């Protein structure tokens, strides 16, 4: 019975999400939506070493997050045109500078041609999709369910940032291992970015979004203390998770 209800719920959710995908009227074109990650001004390469602050160097081993309800806002309008329902951005396999330059690209088709002034990107899984449903293995929420659905929260993990740090300068990154898993509906973020995008029918467009992982850790008095805050798993660490998620709007920009 429970399974039937879950299936029905998942079906309804999937139907409702597919209803968002209105077929555009008028001319369309292709758009590459590219995400690249940096640490400050440097390309983010997993296991490369970065100066975190005056006393600590770090490297990252995972940086991934869900994007959702990605939409473009035309010049002179507030109407959103959704271009991507939900997907998964992972820099986990970015392990050299070439891969860092390439980043992660989504090839979008049938994007309405026009002039756009803003890009809106949801970071995380929208509440209506953030359920324990039997998503297909090819759906972003199905493909990543085992690694990113955390039953204890009743939520997907919206983003994972993991790495290690060297605080004593001995070249060994065994002083701290941080693992920031960020999720629950309250932490969902919508990032609204100015763009100057002209999409012309028959001409492929490109939109390059930069995510600066360092910016996620900037605090008023310096950088987040990773030694004191290596994890964000429990409810009691929610405030740390929230403080990282809330900086996504500051960490993202369009190039």
């Amino acid at each position, binding site marked *: 019975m429970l399974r039937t209800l879950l299936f029905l719920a998942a079906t309804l959710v999937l139907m409702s999400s597919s209803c968002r995908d209105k077929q555009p009227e008028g001319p369309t074109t292709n758009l590459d939506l590219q995400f690249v990650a940096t640490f400050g001004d440097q390309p983010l390469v997993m296991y490369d070493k970065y100066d975190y602050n005056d006393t600590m160097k770090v490297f990252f081993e995972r940086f991934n997050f869900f994007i959702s309800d990605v939409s473009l806002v035309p010049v002179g309008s507030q109407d959103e045109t959704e271009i991507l329902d939900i997907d998964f951005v992972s820099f986990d396999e970015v392990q050299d500078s070439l891969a860092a330059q390439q980043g992660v690209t989504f090839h979008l088709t049938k994007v309405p041609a026009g002039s756009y002034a803003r890009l809106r990107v949801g970071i995380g899984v929208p509440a209506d999709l953030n359920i324990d449903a039997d998503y297909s293995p090819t759906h972003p929420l199905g493909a990543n369910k*085992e690694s990113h659905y*955390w039953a204890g929260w009743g939520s997907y993990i919206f983003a994972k940032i993991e790495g290690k740090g060297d605080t004593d300068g001995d070249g060994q990154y*065994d002083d701290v*291992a*941080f693992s920031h898993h960020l999720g629950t509906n309250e932490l969902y973020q919508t990032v609204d970015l100015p763009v100057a995008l002209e999409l012309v029918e028959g001409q492929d467009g490109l939109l390059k979004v930069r995510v600066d992982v360092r910016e996620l850790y900037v605090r008023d008095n310096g950088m987040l203390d990773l030694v004191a805050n290596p994890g964000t798993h*429990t409810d009691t660490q929610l405030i740390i998770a929230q403080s990282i998620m809330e900086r996504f709007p500051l960490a993202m920009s369009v190039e």
Partner: protein
Amino acid sequence: MRAGRILLLSALALLLGATSCKQDPPPAPQPGCESLTEIPYDPKPKEVVVPPNFPPMPIPPDNPLTEEGVVLGRYLFYDPILSSDSTMSCASCHMPEFSFTDGQAVSEGVTGEVGTRSSMSLLNVGYFLNGLFWDGRSPDLEDQALQPVENPIELHEQWPNVEAKLRRHALYPELFRKAFGIEHTCEITKELAAKAIAQFERTLVSSGQSKYDRRVNGEPGVFFTESELRGFDMFFDISPEMPDAECGHCHNVPFFTTNDYFNNGIEEVTDLNDFPDKGRGEVTGNIFDNGKFRAPTLRNITLTAPYMHDGRFQTLEEVLDHYNSGGHYADNRDPLIRPLGLTEEQKQDIINFLKTLEDIPFTENPEFQNPWH
């Protein structure tokens, strides 16, 4: 004398005439390629029954499960015909009573040579979509099933020999016909054999009758003990009052694995090139994957000792001691592998929770047993 010749010629003529009046005999069958078309081919779809807390199993469209395919796969799985000296089958290293492992640290092949890795459980293997074997070198069950036959430290046979043995076997041509509709015995191939074995393996799904499953599926009267509940809390970091044992991140529900690859700190190395078994790195060629191995399912973990990819730990207590220690540092040791600070009682609580994952109805399912007995 002349009359005799005439009679003889007449007799020969009659004989030839009579012979020529017969229809031409059918061509002699090509050895090893007998027709099977008289055997009916009517495959019936087979549904994989899964517990309520499991998602539907993804089935590859080019190998749908049928009753007949699963039957064939089961016969093949348990048949030593796949080995060079007819002494070992898939089941030699994947026995139901050990949740389809072999109870050994590392497995021994037909030549007596031992490998370097422990036999992996096949429980819920149909859900393992991120590579198979400890290092993920095989993309799917159809590919995986081909490999042990020709591995010199496993069955040490050649597929052409196996195909020849199957084609002249008393039973298999009929089973292949019923499963795949082949018309001649010579159409029996390693690919079809692997498909059938994969079909059988996809049926190896949890019964849903473990204490854990019965509890989470709301069976009346089934409750965790206090110790099991504490173990559950620590395993999944539910309660802020209890330590976070960090288990669930790699062994998440419902399969108690994330099907991903980790360095869990069991190997003491000087650098990332120093791993005696590079594991996932051997497959990807990526130095940061060296020493990473697939996180195995913890379902039926009580039946699958010894533990780790090389069977180095004999007991769950040893496993908990390792994780509690934080293991050995390497740049790619998972960040969640860290000293946990668990007390003896807390370690035992986690072991007691792990025991709730024991699923004897699965191991004793008659449909999974040796059909040759």
